[in-house]
């Protein structure tokens, strides 16, 4: 499947719970850029953005169920695929 470079994003509430998640995302997605707004962090990436459970757990120091993202998620853009290990946003078209 060819990957698009059209922008995808995830936006999270800016709070203590989401700091390690944001860190994990930025570490796993070298092209991602975080924009800080009042009470909100929006992370943009070209084409694809992945949240990895293991990376979040490393930074959180406990088990993390990716469904916990729900609690602090504000919005997203891109087609979503969610498994136990990864929460992936992407566009499929070239």
């Amino acid at each position, binding site marked *: 499947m060819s990957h*698009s470079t*059209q*922008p*995808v*994003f995830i*936006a999270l*509430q800016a709070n203590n719970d989401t700091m390690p998640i944001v860190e994990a995302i930025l570490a796993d997605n070298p092209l991602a850029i975080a924009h800080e*707004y*009042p*009470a*909100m962090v*929006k992370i943009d990436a070209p084409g694809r953005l992945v949240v990895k459970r293991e990376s979040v757990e490393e930074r959180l120091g406990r088990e993390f169920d990716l*469904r*916990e993202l*729900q*609690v*602090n*998620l*504000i*919005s*997203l*853009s*891109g*087609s*979503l*695929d*969610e*498994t*136990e290990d990864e929460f992936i946003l992407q*566009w*499929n*078209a070239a």
Partner: protein
Amino acid sequence: MTTSKAPAKKLSLKENYALLTRDLGWKPSYQTEDTLFPAVKFEGIKIHDWDKWEDPFRLTMDAYWKYQGEKERKLYAIIDAFQQNNGQFNVSDARYLQALKLFINGVIGLEYSAHRGFNIVGREFPGVGTRIAAQMQAIDELRHAQTQIHALSHYNKYFAGMAEFPHQFDRAWYLSIPKSFFEDAITSGPFEYIIAICFSFEYVLTNLVFMPWMSGAAYNGDMSTVSFGFSAQSDEARHMTLGIEVIKFLLEQDPANVPIVQGWIDKWFWRGYRLLTLIAAMMDYMLPKRVMSWSEAWDIYFEQNGGALFADLARYGIRMPKHWEVTVKEKGHVSHQLWSTFYQFRHAAGFPVWLPTPEEMDWMSLKYPDTFDKYYRPRYEHWAELERQGKPFVNATLPQLCQTCQWPLLFTEADDPTEICYREGSYLGEKFHFCSDGCKDIFSKEPEKFVHAHLPVHQIYQGNYFNADVNPTAPDFNPLVEALKYMGINPGVDGGDFAGHIDAVNWELWTKRPANMHAPTTTDTAPERKSA
């Protein structure tokens, strides 16, 4: 049946969801499918296999309760703390409160309508996965209506114009715009409804409402609103994903669905865009501390993100919504045109209106370099001068409304901001008027539906807008004052000028801070106002 020897299989999220959910439905044999699901055929959408529906979030009820319960506990803890600390006095100024009135009177009704609409879809679709997704969204939307009521309840105790929100939603002239939008969606068939709301509105447009606007609420010190806003938006993220899934599902099921879906995208993009004019004005004029302009938000959330979405859908033969180019041409104008409209009809609004201060106009010059100084600054300066002379400008005549979106004809031609855009059509020997080609197109496709629009201006002139206990033949009957009362607007109190408004006076008395942070005045000596 298995033996008890092998350990129980470990289920993945997908497998667990599929086992618990997928096969709950069955093919009826004592009743026909058409009897049980009578509403899925008339729109012309062809579904060959409902099981091809993919559930992106795969939420089972146990997980739904767990995460939603946690969100609610967090949210109500914040609302409780906000109320205990009288957080309503911590917001930037008393003008910010006026934006909340549009929220409570306009948006709660929309959330509730969405709740009911998704209940219909949740009942009428034959596919289990699709129905469950719709049902979850239905109850989420109830959540949004109720958390908004609960978050704003405390403001209502101190400020005017919020106490009659369900009444106003059903009757106030400018709230027929959001009301008719959602009622158009719900009175459509279930497929159109879900495309209208999940895709065109939520996926393409609601980020504009919740991201910059709610971030703006935080910036203005309203922790209660930002909390319900962001908490609601986390549900929306699920709904948006439903929106994109539903569109792919329909497009993949049958090529004959493509033109039908494109028609709905065209209609609902335009309908949603027109509705969001309200947000444009709120962002540019009603947030005392501003995060971004409407024009910037449109660029980020529609042109860039929406563009990415439509690039992705091109492989199905879906193109950008019709008239999208017009929205880009209008982005430097609509908020100013609407605020000018609200200003001149402020005596008939449920909230007070003000002219932007010089400091705010400088911000707009910066954000709207091509349009503000040329077209809009002169208006505000002229009106400000009239206010100084003690003869403020008011438009006392009711406006001409668009038959489709129900806004007054306040928008100008896309290529000439000095000419109002008039479009006219006729149907069954009667004339109908529109604010744009987009709205005229929508009417022309379904005139049988849109003749039934309840246009408040026409209703007032028909004599339908006064309360039951009023005698319209009495010598002192004032139809416009009575119409306001009918709408749930307290004439001479709720609307009018911001300066001297009950909220402004009380704000300064209670907080000792200026009601308008950009135009400090001293009205410390004014007595507290209880009512008119």
